[in-house]
């Protein structure tokens, strides 16, 4: 478990810990001091750093070997030895007459002698007044380090769902800012799914993470200025400790069985039952016209399923009643045949591999570290996988006494394959009784004749169009998308010490990223055949294929570039032994830029790289007489480019008196090009101030069991921006395909009062450690008040903007909360330890002011965040009040007058608040149990107090059918609860599930689905408890390790997301609780 790491920053810090109490006489001769460094359990600490300090300067150092033993040269008995090891409280000894010095170090994991790294500076937690939460590599060891997103889950109070302390903005960014080794990173990448550039989490070798510090309040974050209102996550990577070369290797294998929640779905029997009901309720199948009607329905394939087709065949007389019954019974008995086939033939069990190798060495004036991480992920889709390699190299060089140079580079290469065809949406309507393999073992084909209307189908042969059959299992491997990504991040940092108390640092980071996406749609695929047919036309009685039949090749090139330049002057001096002042001022310039270009080639030959020119201008005008294909200019090419620039000035200062009383202040100005002409709004500074009191340092504090006690409070303003809003009139332009020239439309009207959003945070916190640091924790209260938040205002229809909303700075919103972190070493003996951590976060969000009301009732339900109601949380769910089923089995709700209705109430007064989607209470409970070489740990994550809209409804929706020229009931697999629906009068007394109203029924109306789906009975409790991780590790005994030159070795087995408990099956399903767990095997070696 012991990581052989020391922190350079840590080393600097040691400077302040000189114990001057017992100075002794000097002697001039050199001598050696040796000893063993152990932890509280008397186990040797490997790689602890021992430095010799003379006259306030470090003059030499060494590290402990694998037995925890060290030997070091000293010249004077007044020299002191400083023992440090990450996660432990450093210790200082004046050598005096001692030649053997055995040291027992105390763990600081539960203590407060940590440092806090804000990215701009490193300060001792003891001197901080802000709210910080720190997660160290020791804690992260318990889990698989696969992605940053899940890493912090349950680790930080107040951090839930990727958001810190709730939502603080309505339209701006809500994610915290991520900072790696001092540089903010907005990893903008191409998202092939949306076709847009999206801001993601930074890419890095996860095993390199030394610590993650989450900055929560204004005092902690205001140094980050206009982007800090959502909190800041600061990641620091590992450094090598002094001594011999350190090599670490690890590998993990993760297996996740394929799972699909078919048990919650209607099976074949349920579906046949519904299809029979469709027939028996259909008046048109009852008269003498029934055969003709049935034949027309068959011809137009409005319901292209085996069940309804068989029923209609019976009505036309093609099959007898016995044959029909036989057929329906056979189908009925198929269970989940389609889903089983999908699992068997179209999916696989995801499997993820990860390897990491790192090498590091630190000498007196150089520190080197390199790591390489390789990942190979195979996803459930058989042709979806990715491989990546990340190489991280850092070197810190002390050029002279006063000049330090750090350089680092991170290179990441990733290759992804993405299957574009999914058997679960195969391009035709399937039912649970359908198959992917025929009984003879051949692949099932959905025939065009079974889906298309009779006359559309006739076109294929009449006009020589391409076949429209779909064979799902053949399609799986076709049209795969590939993405090759490369990212580089390189930084240099120069640190010049003018004096011991004044230094200047200048740093520059350049980031480059490229994503090259390509998708070759082969001519065999249904997608190409369908596209070619859809764009064909007739000229002089011959069919013209305006898109030539052949491969279609789509490529997207995405480039991102960013640089950050920062210059900073740091001051740190103690006056008269008690007055300690630290300050910094600096300036930062940042630019982010990205470009996307998208191109499509038709009839592409991947071997000779040729393609056919098409007449896009004509196609865009609409030429197809057959199935009405549409062609847009972006189907040929599109480009976009964005550049953002920021210039900032900042400074902060901290004063502490006798380490007891702390005062901090911070100020920052930000300006950016995002606000273009309206620079008058850019001059508002972002600032904070904080106070702290280390009560335990007071002389009156003589209570023995209190080791630490600190009270701190802070107040300040954080900013936030919405990048896509501007104060001036903006129009966007494109080419008009119909009449030529450039067409433009106004995307935003002049809105001259736009400015930064401002969030004021008050934070009060208590840090404590009791009973020899056995119980430690933090209790915090915060009140974040967002003012001038961008909130939406509905465009005025008469002003011509009735469909759009625009944003003005007039929203106000409050987040109040309490956060508690408690950590206890319940048992602490040599062989057996048990410690537990409880994290609790309470967050209450309330919109205190907006000047908007939903102009139309359904917007309140569909876009609740666009029309917040004062007094309710921002992320609210609004619903109709459910009034039970009618005597006819129709859903009913209360309207604004309290009347029971079966139609959509159109008054806003009928729409009630039904809960918030953000957990009010969240947190985790984790425990770590060590017995000798075994380590068992687990983490339970809980969230309560929030709601979700049930979208997995036991009812049938409505979809538009081009064959029927109207909306029809979408008969398809749905929530299995539909079997408990209303069927006969009286059922309304014991079920809330409405009867099925088919499109052919006189009751049919769009309102029925709307009121049921949006009723408060379908707003369900989202409270959940999840065993997010359980791990068992075994550290191979030291004597075995030594035989194979290992410093230590560990085997670990994890299960991720073993179970989820939720209030209902629907909630569990929607929370992903039915997904199968991940099983992880890991091996960790240190040489």
């Amino acid at each position: 478990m012991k990581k052989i790491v020391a922190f350079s920053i840590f080393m600097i810090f040691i400077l302040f810990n000189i114990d001057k109490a017992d100075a002794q006489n000097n002697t001039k001769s050199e001598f050696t001091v040796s000893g063993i460094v152990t932890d509280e359990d008397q186990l040797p600490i490997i790689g602890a750093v021992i430095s010799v300090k003379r006259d306030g300067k470090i003059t030499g150092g060494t590290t402990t070997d694998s037995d925890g033993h060290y030997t070091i040269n000293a010249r004077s008995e007044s020299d002191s030895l400083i023992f440090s090891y990450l996660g432990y409280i450093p210790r200082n000894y004046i050598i005096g007459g001692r030649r053997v010095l055995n040291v027992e170090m105390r763990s600081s994991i539960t203590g407060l002698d940590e440092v806090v790294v804000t990215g701009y500076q490193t300060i001792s937690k003891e001197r901080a007044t802000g709210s910080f939460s720190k997660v160290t590599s020791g804690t992260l060891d318990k889990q698989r380090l696969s992605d940053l997103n899940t890493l912090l889950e349950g680790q930080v109070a107040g951090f839930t769902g990727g958001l810190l302390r709730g939502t603080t903005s309505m339209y701006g960014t809500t994610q915290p800012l991520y900072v790696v080794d001092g540089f903010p990173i907005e990893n903008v990448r191409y998202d092939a799914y949306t076709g847009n550039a999206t801001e993601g989490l930074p890419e890095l070798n996860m095993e390199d993470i030394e610590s993650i510090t989450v900055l929560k309040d204004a005092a902690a974050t205001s140094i980050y200025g206009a982007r800090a209102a959502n909190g800041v996550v600061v990641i620091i990577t590992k450094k090598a400790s002094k001594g011999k070369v350190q090599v670490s290797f690890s590998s993990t294998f993760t297996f996740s069985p394929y799972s699909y929640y078919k048990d919650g779905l209607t099976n074949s029997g349920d579906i046949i039952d519904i299809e029979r009901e469709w027939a028996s309720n259909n008046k048109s199948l009852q008269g003498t016209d029934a055969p003709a009607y049935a034949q027309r329905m068959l011809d137009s394939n409005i319901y292209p399923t085996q069940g309804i087709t068989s029923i209609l065949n019976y009505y036309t007389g093609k099959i007898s009643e016995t044959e029909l019954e036989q057929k329906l019974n056979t189908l009925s008995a198929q269970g989940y045949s389609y889903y089983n086939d999908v699992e068997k033939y179209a999916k696989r069990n995801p499997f993820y591999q990860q390897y990491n190798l790192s090498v590091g060495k630190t000498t007196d004036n150089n520190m080197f570290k390199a790591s390489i991480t390789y990942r190979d992920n195979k996803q459930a889709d058989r042709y979806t996988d990715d491989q990546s390699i990340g190489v991280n190299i850092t070197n810190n060089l002390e050029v002279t006494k006063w000049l330090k140079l750090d350089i680092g580079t991170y290179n990441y290469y990733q290759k992804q394959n993405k299957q574009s065809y999914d058997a679960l949406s195969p391009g035709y309507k399937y039912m649970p009784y359908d198959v992917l393999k025929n009984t003879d073992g051949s692949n099932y084909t959905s025939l065009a004749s079974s889906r298309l209307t009779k006359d559309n189908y006739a076109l294929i042969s009449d006009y020589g169009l391409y076949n429209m059959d779909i064979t799902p299992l053949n399609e799986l491997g076709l049209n795969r998308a590939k993405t090759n990504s490369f990212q580089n991040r390189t930084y240099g940092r120069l640190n010049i010490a003018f004096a011991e108390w004044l230094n200047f640092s200048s740093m520059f980071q350049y980031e480059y990223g490229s994503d090259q996406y390509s998708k070759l749609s082969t001519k065999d695929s249904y997608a190409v055949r369908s596209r070619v047919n859809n764009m064909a036309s007739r000229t002089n009685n011959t069919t013209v294929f305006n898109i030539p039949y052949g491969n279609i090749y789509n490529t997207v090139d995405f480039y991102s570039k960013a640089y950050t330049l920062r210059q900073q002057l740091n001051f740190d001096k103690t006056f008269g032994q008690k007055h300690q002042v630290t300050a910094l001022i600096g300036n930062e310039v940042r630019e982010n830029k990205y470009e996307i270009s998208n191109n499509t080639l038709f009839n592409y030959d991947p071997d000779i790289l040729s393609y056919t020119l098409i007449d896009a201008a004509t196609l865009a005008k609409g030429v197809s007489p057959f199935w009405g294909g549409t062609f847009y200019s972006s189907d040929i090419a599109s480009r976009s480019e964005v550049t953002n620039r920021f210039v900032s000035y900042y400074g902060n200062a901290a004063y502490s008196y006798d380490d007891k009383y702390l005062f901090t202040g911070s100020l920052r100005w930000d300006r950016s090009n995002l606000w273009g002409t309206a620079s008058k709004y850019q001059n508002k500074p972002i600032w904070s101030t904080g106070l702290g009191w280390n009560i335990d340092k007071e002389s009156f504090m003589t209570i023995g069991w209190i080791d630490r006690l600190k009270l701190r409070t802070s107040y300040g303003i954080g900013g936030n921006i919405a990048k896509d809003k501007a104060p001036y009139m903006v129009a966007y332009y494109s080419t008009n395909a119909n009449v030529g020239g450039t067409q433009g439309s106004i995307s935003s009207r002049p809105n001259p009062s736009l400015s930064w959003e401002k969030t004021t945070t008050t934070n009060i916190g208590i840090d404590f450690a009791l009973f020899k640091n056995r119980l430690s924790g933090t209790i915090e209260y915060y009140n974040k008040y967002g003012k001038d938040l961008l909130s939406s205002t509905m465009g005025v229809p008469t002003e011509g903007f009735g469909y759009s909303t625009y944003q003005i700075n007039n929203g106000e919103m409050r987040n109040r909360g309490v956060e508690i972190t408690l950590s206890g070493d319940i048992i602490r003996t040599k062989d057996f330890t048990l410690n537990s951590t409880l994290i609790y976060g309470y967050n209450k969000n309330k919109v205190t002011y907006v000047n908007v009301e939903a102009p139309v009732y359904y917007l309140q339900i569909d876009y609740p965040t666009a029309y917040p109601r004062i007094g309710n949380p921002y992320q609210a769910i609004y619903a109709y009040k459910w009034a039970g089923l009618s005597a006819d089995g129709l859903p009913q709700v209360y309207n604004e007058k309290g009347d029971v209705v079966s139609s959509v109430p159109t008054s806003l007064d009928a729409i009630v608040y039904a809960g918030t989607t953000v957990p009010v209470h969240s947190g985790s409970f984790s425990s770590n149990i060590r017995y000798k070489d075994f380590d068992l740990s687990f983490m339970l994550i809980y969230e309560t107090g929030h709601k979700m809209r049930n979208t997995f409804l036991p009812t049938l929706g409505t979809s538009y059918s081009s064959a029927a020229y109207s909306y029809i009931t979408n008969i398809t697999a749905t929530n299995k609860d539909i079997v408990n629906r209303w069927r006969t009068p009286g059922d309304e007394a014991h079920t809330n599930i409405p009867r099925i109203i088919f499109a052919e029924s006189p009751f049919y109306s769009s309102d029925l689905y709307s009121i049921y789906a949006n009723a408060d009975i379908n707003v369900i409790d989202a409270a959940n408890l999840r065993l997010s991780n359980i791990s068992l590790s075994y550290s191979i005994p030291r004597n075995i390790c030594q035989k194979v030159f290992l410093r230590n070795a560990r085997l670990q087995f994890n299960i991720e997301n073993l179970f989820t408990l939720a209030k209902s099956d629907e909630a569990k399903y929607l929370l992903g609780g039915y997904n199968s767990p991940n099983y992880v095997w890991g091996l960790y070696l240190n040489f």
Partner: protein
Amino acid sequence: MKTNIFPIKLLFVFVLSLSFTACNDYLDILPKGERIPTTLSDFEALLRDEYGTHRLDASNAINLLNDRYQTIANLNYYPLTKANYMWDENANRIELNNSDETMYYASYASISTCNLIIEHAPTATESTDAERNEVIAYAKVLRAINYFYLVNFYAETYQENNAATKNAVPLITNANIGASYQQLTVKGIYDFILNDMQEALPFLKSESPTPLHPNLGTAYAFYARVYLQMSNYTKALEYANLALAENGQLYDWTTYYSENKTQIETPDSYTTTASPTGHYYIENYYFRHGASSYSSTENPISVERKAKFEDGDARAAARWKVRTVGTETYCVSTTRGFFNAGGITTTEVYLIKAECLARSGKYSEAMNELNKVREKRILSEKYVPLTASTEEKAIEYIRRTKDNELILTIIPFADARRYNTETKYARTLSKVVDGQTISLSPASHMWTMPFPMGAIKNPGNGTIIQNVSK
């Protein structure tokens, strides 16, 4: 404290660079792909935005006339459609029109664009005065056209004796957020329309850059339409003649028929043929989309409605074919492309001219104009020139052709409202539904459409009063 000389120099560099980066130019870069409009062509481009500026969705007028066929499922799905289509006088359409209505929203969006151009074009850069005046003139004509549609949908039809007292629609002439407006009278809106036209006319040319830019022909044709709606037949005739002098071409649908004969005549084949009626249709003065602004097929019509076309109407035969879907039989669209459902064509002007002539007793001249259109529509084997000896007969023939030619546009609705004010031409619509005869009287309140709730409840800087009780 020992200090080094070299680092002190660096300190100067640091201070210098601090002041250097303060340079404002660094932050003055603007986003790409979008732009703050400044040049005249930046503003002119707004006139090429078909979705934003050139759409007319008069669906509910078309539903009221039963010109479009609605399936039972659609009627169940859209209660407002059902109320209009089934002439349900008890239905509270104000409540049913409970959200947005494209007629209102798209028309005012177009007006806003016109207002923006009228306000900003005078100071637009990179242009001459003549160019600026021309762009402003386009915007004024388009604004007038929008107000004409709005007033003929949401307010009572123009009648000389009461136009000054009847409330009409909001008049807004500014594109700023929070711009104030006033709901004028019918006369007020017509006066505004005529004023806009008068101001625009001197700067228009016979040729405009695209069919989306009104030319002189558009202005004359629109004048003819406005004066006809005001029952000012002399003025209407005068402008109709001016318009036809600019463009009098008629498209020959009988040729189209013979070119696509096989497809048109094969009973069960619903493959569409390319419609010639797009942006560059030779009859266009000005092109404006109907409800959809993309290439599509037209709305279906009922079998009864198709029967109202003349025997041998090639255009109708090419456009719809009877089809049974499920339990319902109606005529589905068989041409695909763009349809000028909101612009102005020569056909309409010929028929305006015909009516004006008939109104002044020149029946044979009126029939001549009508026959010019019919000749290009009715297959030669069925074509017989029409004659009339009374105004009523002449109007009957003209109206039949106009209703059919301009089906699925707002014009037959506007005409019906105009005729409804004249006893001899007022018509009661009737049909049989499930054995019951239902009807819509010329005096019904349903001929005026209610404003959508979205506009009433979010009125902005002004107030809007409904012109109809339900």
